[in-house]
């Protein structure tokens, strides 16, 4: 340290202020990082930041879709309206039930399918493509399709279940909240399991083959190999997949809206917010509901990130 201070290795003359400024401009990594990030940041501010801020602002006003310009600041009254509305809490509960059950089932089935697809067998490529079909069908189309299949009188679901003897007589699946919720979860699992399977498959293919060979030499059972090698190694992938899916499931709208409409018993948070915004023209309270959805999803995200943090530190 002392040597460098008194006698520099290279005798560079003390640069002038201008020169130092230039050097800073040219060589400062921080500055250039900002320059290169700027377009993205500006784009994000315009397309995501501004609407988000707009929603925050609207949630503190009495704006109506019919007279957006005449909005007056009303403080937190929209939030008290939404939070004291029992329908909102039903919607929150519906969303949480839907998300937990559907994501849980999707993870289990996705893992199973990924394990099968990861093994070598003839026609594997074809099967991998075929598995993706439900996911490729647009949600509104598959929701409409399943609505007809779940019809109580001429739906194919009842027909098959009665034929197989599972049911004694047809069930009106979409008539009451609990069976409707079951049907919604079923369709979502049908649709999104391929996505889960694909993500987990990607994780499985990153597991190095040599660890399996080592396990084989140690004569470990298949089950033990799975739990002590495969699962820990793909845990980060599964965590990411679960986060993706949960965030998606928490804002579920299309499937519920098409299959069950705005029925209170199955309405999710997004359906609730849309009803207030568009059908009731209440941009104030609708925006408040949207902000609450944002906060709830944010809360879940932070929670998940906190949960998976230690495991990443280990690795």
């Amino acid at each position, binding site marked *: 340290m002392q040597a460098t201070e008194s006698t520099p290795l290279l005798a560079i003359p003390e640069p002038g202020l201008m020169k130092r400024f230039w050097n800073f401009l040219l060589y400062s990594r921080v500055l250039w990082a900002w320059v290169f990030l700027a377009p993205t940041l500006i784009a994000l501010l315009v397309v995501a930041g501004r609407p988000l801020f707009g929603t925050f602002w609207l949630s503190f006003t009495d704006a109506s879709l*019919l007279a957006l310009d005449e909005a007056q600041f009303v403080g937190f009254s929209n939030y008290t309206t939404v939070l004291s509305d029992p329908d909102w809490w039903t919607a929150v509960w519906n969303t949480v039930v839907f998300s937990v059950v559907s994501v849980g089932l999707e993870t289990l089935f996705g893992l199973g399918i990924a394990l099968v697809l990861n093994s070598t067998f003839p026609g594997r490529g074809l099967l991998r493509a075929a598995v993706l079909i439900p996911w490729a069908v647009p949600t509104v189309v598959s929701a409409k399709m399943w609505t007809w299949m779940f019809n109580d009188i001429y739906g194919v679901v009842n027909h098959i279940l009665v034929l197989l003897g599972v049911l004694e007589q047809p069930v*009106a*699946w*979409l*008539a009451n909240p609990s069976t409707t919720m079951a049907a919604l979860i079923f369709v979502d699992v049908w649709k999104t399991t391929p996505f889960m399977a694909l993500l987990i498959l990607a994780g499985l293919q990153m597991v190095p083959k040599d660890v399996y060979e080592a396990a084989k030499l140690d004569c470990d059972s298949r089950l033990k190999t799975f739990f002590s090698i495969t699962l820990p190694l793909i845990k980060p992938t599964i965590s990411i997949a679960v986060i993706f899916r949960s965030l998606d499931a928490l804002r579920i709208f299309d499937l519920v809206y098409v299959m069950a409409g*705005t*029925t209170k018993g199955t309405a999710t948070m997004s359906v609730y917010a849309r009803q207030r915004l568009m059908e*009731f023209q209440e941009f104030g309270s609708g925006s408040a509901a949207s902000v609450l959805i944002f906060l709830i999803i944010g809360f879940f995200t932070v929670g998940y990130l906190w949960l998976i943090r230690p495991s990443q530190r280990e690795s």
Partner: protein
Amino acid sequence: MRQLRNFLLAGVLGLVAGVGASAHADAAKKITVSCGSNGIERDLCIEGTNEWSKKTGQRVEILSTPNDSNERLGLYQQLLSAGSADVDLYQIDVVWPGILASHLLDLTPHLSEKEISEHVAGALNSNKADGKVVALPWFMDGGVLYYRADLLKKYGQKVPQTWEEMGKVAKLILEKEHAAGNAELWGFVYQGRAYEGLTCNALEWVASTGGGTIVDDKGAVTINNPQAAKAIGLVASWVGKKGSITPEGVLSYSEEEARGIFQSGKSIFMRNWPYAWALLNSKDSAVKGKVVMTSLPSGTAGGPRAATLGGWSLGVSKYTKNPKEAVDLAKFLTGFEQQKMRAIKGSFNPTRVALYSDAEVLKANPHLKELKQVFLSAVPRPAGPTKTKYNRLSAEFWNSVHAVLSQAETAESSLKKLEARLAKTSNGGKW
């Protein structure tokens, strides 16, 4: 070389001429109309506006809008609240004038007393907001009862005049048909899903039993009354598992699901809109020629009949750049000749009283003769007095009725809670 030059010159001249021609065309004013696009609706809209273009020399452009009426309302609200002049003429639902009135032109000064009186009173009144006519009725709808004439005849039953009678007839026929092996037959289907259609259905039960129209003309909430509870309770008592009159699935039916069941021969009675008539009698229908369309039963013997008024109107945007032409087009499309053409070609029920006794219209739509009375006395949903809050009221109402139909609550307690909620929503009946 010379040839090429001439060719180029000709081209340039042609271009100039083309520009000149289009500049000339721009002198004609352009009116944009939003039309529905269900089935034949769009074709008839094009036909009508073309005729007007020919007559006046103005141009008309047609905007396609979503079929789902809730989506359409959302789109209109976005356009109108932005003060957009892109659309001059809006096709609006009969329950929207209250919601959209502040963005629509007052048409009253453009209408004579005579012109107003030519429309069915109920249809025209629904298009008033604060006493001003904000839209012109274009075509109308009303709930009707379809029944299987063959089954009623087979068991010697008369057409039921009251709801209770209908329940009894349905039960009797069901028992015999089930015993005879027709196990999949049901008695009565309607629109029971929690949506606007249920509001229309339940309003008919309530109004025909003397239970009022949820909210009265002055805005006071009237729904919590014994007649209303009796009407809704009766229909709810029919819903159930096999052996009941109405399948549980009715709680998820909209128009098309109900029609699907009736048209495949699996129900004796159905409440629906007149549109189903043509489809029930189409080539591949299982009930072709076996169905009769009539007015819905009453709540009491000899009592009132009620059909919920539906339909669409044309309103002129306040932000239009060509109000004169837009109003003229609205009046043209809702005029006698256009409504007649639409009634004959597309079975759109006219809003002009005179057309209900027009020979050509009746020839194409023989059922209109019987439906005339239904339509002339159709019950409007309380959109007028509830103004911008109609959708809130309707959602509260259909949710309360849905709870009773699904046996989660009794009619009495559900209506009592509804009254309290509506009192809060309406700010004590002020809306």
